[in-house]
């Protein structure tokens, strides 16, 4: 018995050791980022637990040298609009596919679903030319419209349809007898019921949009229209090896999202695992 307990203590040490090591490897880059963001430019490659001199100034430098507040604003409002649009059109179509009977509905749904295997990277060239002909290059419209009507939206339809399929028929039948229109049923009965699915979809869509890099790289040229990932990537070219500024900018771009994640991580992780990480 004693022997067995010893063995289990040993495995526990190894077990926690491995997990601690892996977690540290994941966390250290962020700590190093925060550490460097306060360093003096002459000391960026010197190892110091607490940077000396401790420079808040780096953050102010970033804000002065770049329209960082604009990048922030652009990222937020684009992600918010994409999320709202995806939820509205996705749930509307998801409700119709799940609950309304009309000819060809299953074929239409399959068509939509099949586009999930079309990589955005494949169709970007025609989309770029389309946007050019419409005069929408260097505007935010492609960054908002394409995800809503394209990949993000289709994913939204899928998630919402799966959810609405589980809603019992009696609910809407009662509403129908009361003379509710279909839009009314959708808006005041189905949508409030779908809060869990909407939460999942919100997290997923917002995160995808917030981190999107390829599309802004292609559609945006003007500095003041850039989103955070694009601005950071180009900032790398611009400031060259001024790592302390790059790290301050990265901290500002990352930490707010990480704080939100910390408080809502259960929803985040469940949401991602529910949606299969598509």
């Amino acid at each position, binding site marked *: 018995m004693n022997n067995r307990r010893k063995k289990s203590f040993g495995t526990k040490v190894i*077990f926690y050791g491995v997990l601690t090591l*892996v*977690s*540290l490897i*994941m966390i250290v*880059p962020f700590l*190093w*980022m925060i550490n460097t963001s306060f360093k003096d430019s002459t000391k960026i*490659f*010197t190892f110091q637990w607490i940077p000396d001199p401790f420079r808040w100034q780096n953050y102010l430098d970033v804000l002065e040298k770049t329209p960082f507040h604009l990048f922030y604003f652009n990222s937020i409002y684009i992600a918010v609009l994409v999320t709202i649009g995806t939820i509205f*059109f*996705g749930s*509307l*179509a998801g*409700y*119709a*596919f799940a609950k*309304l009977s*009309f000819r060809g509905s299953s074929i*239409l749904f399959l*068509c*939509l679903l099949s*586009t999930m*295997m*079309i*990589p955005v990277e*494949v*169709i*970007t*060239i*025609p*989309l770029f030319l*389309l946007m050019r002909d419409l005069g929408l290059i260097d505007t935010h419209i492609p960054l908002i419209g394409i995800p*809503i*009507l*394209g990949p993000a*939206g289709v994913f939204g339809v899928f998630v919402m349809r799966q959810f609405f399929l589980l809603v019992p028929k009696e609910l809407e039948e009662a509403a129908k007898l009361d003379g509710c229109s*279909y839009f009314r049923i959708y808006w005041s009965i189905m949508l409030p019921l779908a809060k869990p699915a909407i939460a999942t979809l919100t997290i997923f869509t917002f995160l995808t949009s917030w*981190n999107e*890099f*390829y599309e802004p*790289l292609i559609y945006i040229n003007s500095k003041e229209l850039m989103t955070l*990932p694009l601005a*950071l*990537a180009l900032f790398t070219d611009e400031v060259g090896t001024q*790592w302390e500024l*790059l*790290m301050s900018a*990265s901290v500002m771009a*990352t930490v707010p*999202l*990480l704080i939100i994640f910390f408080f809502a*991580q259960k929803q*985040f*992780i469940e949401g991602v*695992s*529910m949606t*299969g*990480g*598509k």
Partner: protein
Amino acid sequence: MEANLNTSAQLSLEKKRRRKKFIGSEAFYGYLFVSPMVLGFLVVMLGPLLYSFYMSLTDWQLLGDPNFIGLENYQRLTSDPEFGTVLKNTLIFSVGLVPVNIILALMLALLLHRNLPGMGIFRTAIFIPVMTSIVVWSIIWKYMFATDEGFINQILRVFSIEGPAWLYDPKLAMAAVIVVSAMKNVGLNMVLFLAALQQVPRTLYEASYLDGANKSKQFWYVTLPMITPTVFLTLILTVIGSMKVFGQIYVMTGGGPGNHTKVLVYYIWETAFKLFDFGYASAIAIILFIIILVFTLAQWVLRKRWVFHEQ
């Protein structure tokens, strides 16, 4: 005669009535509600895909009109040494990333799938890179991989090892990108596996325990078969994702040194939006589409055969 007229008048009346009936009917609202997404499907997905096929058969450049040149772009692909390199690099990336990612994620999920204190903290830590933008993650790692005084080489120096120029070494640059990519996404696959592990009914373990199965037997004969659907799906998603790698390459190496980390999407982007050779870039994009299509179809077909348990 009169009766005939009567019926035809009735028919047209019927039609009108039907049309009136259609407006406001269940089917009408069905079509109305799905119309934005169907329109989007046509304009943003299907249309561009078909147009990509057409463009790949032209010599379209930024200025000037497209000329139809048949399969010339595809012939050019077969004799383009750079395309060969790009294909090879994408394959190396995929072969390097996928097994590491899946095995590590599975191991971590098995470790974390216990009711011990602290599991939540580890799970959070490993999941954080998933939340982070690939651009930020790559920037940090580019800095950590810096040659002379970068974090990693400083650590190596503690062990008296002179660290190499990671991102400027033809052999090491791809390895560095693979490691960084694996760490970025291992948390995602881990969470998917954890969810699958939680679905395995406890009674199966109890039954196998009564039958005398030890821990490793339980893993091979209970756990693994029960989570194969998830493992398989995750595997395919990871493979497809690895074919589309772009952000980390753009930030960390820019395809370099030389062409040693140039991958498919980077080559498409460069050909289309740096060199404005839209026709040729479309041909490469179509090749990417076919590769991904093959994996997706393979998933559908093989799923039924390989996967032990599926509902």
